[in-house]
C-alpha cells in the first residue's frame, strides 16, 4: 500500500464501469500514537467526472498498527481523480492529512488525454509565441475524437485557440497535437485542453503560465 505518514492507504477498485458504484478506502495507522476523532473523506477533483456521495466517514479511534476499511458510493461518468483527506487529533492536537490524487478509470473510453504542456519554461516574456502540446492515447479504435485548446487570460477572457479532429486513432496509438498562441497581457494564463469523443467530453487538463514584461 502507498503511504504518507501516519497512514498507509489504498483505494479499490481503481477501474469501474460508469454509473453508481462503490469504492473502498483501506487505511492503516503506521504511526506510534492513537489517532482520534477522524473525519475521513473521499474528495473529487472534478465532480462532473466522479462525484462522491455523503459527508464521509467517522472513526473515533485508530490505534497504532490498526487497519480499517471505509466504503464510499460514487457516481462515475468518466475517468477522474479523487483524494482522501483526514481531519482529526493526534496526541491531543488537531491535524490534517491528505493523499495525493488517485486516478479512477471509468468505463471503456475511446481515448485518454495523457498530458498537456506548454512547451516552455513557466515564466514567459510578453509577446513571445508559445507552443502547447496535447498527447492523446487511443484505448479503442475511434474516428470521432476532437481536441480543443482554450485559454483563460489575465483580462478574464476565455478564448478558443484551436479545434481539431484527430482522424482515426487506433488502440494504443499515441497522437500529439500542438497549437501556438502569443500572450498579449501580463499575468497568469490558464491553458485548457479538452478531448471529446463526438459530443462527450472525455478528457480535460490545464496548464498555467506566468507572463511578464
Amino acid at each position, binding site marked *: 500500500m502507498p503511504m504518507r505518514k501516519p497512514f498507509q492507504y489504498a483505494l479499490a477498485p481503481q477501474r469501474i464501469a460508469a454509473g453508481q458504484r462503490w469504492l473502498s478506502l483501506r487505511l492503516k495507522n503506521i504511526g506510534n500514537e492513537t489517532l482520534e476523532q477522524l473525519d475521513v473523506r473521499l*474528495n473529487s477533483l*472534478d*465532480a*462532473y467526472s466522479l462525484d462522491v456521495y455523503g459527508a464521509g466517514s467517522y472513526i473515533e479511534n485508530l490505534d497504532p498498527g490498526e487497519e480499517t476499511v471505509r466504503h464510499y458510493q460514487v457516481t462515475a461518468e468518466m475517468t477522474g481523480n479523487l483524494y482522501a*483527506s483526514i481531519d482529526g487529533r493526534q496526541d491531543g492536537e488537531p491535524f490534517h492529512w491528505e493523499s495525493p490524487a488517485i486516478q479512477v478509470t471509468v468505463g471503456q473510453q475511446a481515448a485518454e488525454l495523457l498530458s498537456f504542456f506548454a512547451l516552455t519554461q513557466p515564466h514567459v516574456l510578453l509577446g513571445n509565441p508559445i507552443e502547447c502540446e496535447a498527447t492523446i492515447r487511443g484505448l479503442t479504435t475511434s474516428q470521432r475524437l476532437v481536441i480543443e485548446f*482554450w485559454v483563460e487570460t489575465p483580462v478574464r477572457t*476565455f478564448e478558443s485557440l484551436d479545434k481539431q479532429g484527430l482522424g482515426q486513432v487506433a488502440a494504443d496509438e499515441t497522437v500529439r497535437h500542438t497549437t501556438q498562441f502569443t500572450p498579449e497581457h501580463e499575468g497568469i494564463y490558464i491553458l485548457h485542453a479538452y478531448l471529446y469523443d463526438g*459530443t462527450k467530453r472525455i478528457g480535460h487538463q490545464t496548464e498555467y503560465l506566468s507572463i511578464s514584461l
Partner: protein
Amino acid sequence: MPIKYPIEYELKPMHMTEGRRWLTLRIKNTSTDDLSSLDVRLNSLDAYSISVHGSGNYMANLGPQEERMLAFQVLANTSSGLYVTIDGWRDNAPFHWESPNILITVGKEVAELASLFAMTEPYPAQNSKITCEAVVRGLEQSEGLQLEFWADTPGETLEELAAIETKALAPGETARYGAEITVEKRGAYTIYAYLYDDFKRIGRRTEHIYVT
C-alpha cells in the same frame, strides 16, 4: 456576464463565508436555436474545499435569448474552483458545454497559494535537478504559515521535498519559495504544494512534468 457561445453565464456570489451556502447561476441562451433537455450542473474542482449538493438542475427548454436563474447549495470550507456544465440538445443534436473555472473565495484566509511552477521545460531529462517555485500572497497580516512541497513519482512513492515556514507577509505582499527535486525515474511526476495556517490547509496546487 462572461460568454462562451452559446451560453452567457454568471455565478454569484463569488465570495462567501464558510458553511452551507447558496450560489445562483444565471444562464442565457445567446444563440438562435432552442436548447432542450438541459442537465445543468455546478461541479467542484476540489470537493474537500467546496462540495455541491444534489445532482443539478433540469430545464426542459431554453429559448433563444431566454435567461434563467438556478440555485445550488454548497458546503464551503476553503477557496476553490467550480465550473458549470450543460448537457442537452441543440438543433436535434446532443451538445456538451462547460464554463472555465470560476474561483469562489471562502472566508477570510490570511494568505493564498498564488502559483506553483516547476522551473523547467515540460520534458526534462532523467537525473536533472529541478527547482519548484511557489508564490504565497498575503491577504491579511500573517507569519509562520507552513508551506510543504511533495512529489508523487513514477515509482509511486510520495516524497517530501521541503517544509518551509513562511516569513511575515502584509496584505498584497508576495513571497517566493523554492524546493528542489532530482528526477531519477522516467515518467510522469506530479508536484504538490500545500499551504497550511496552523492545521488548516488553505492552499493546494499541483504541477506536472514528464521525465524522458
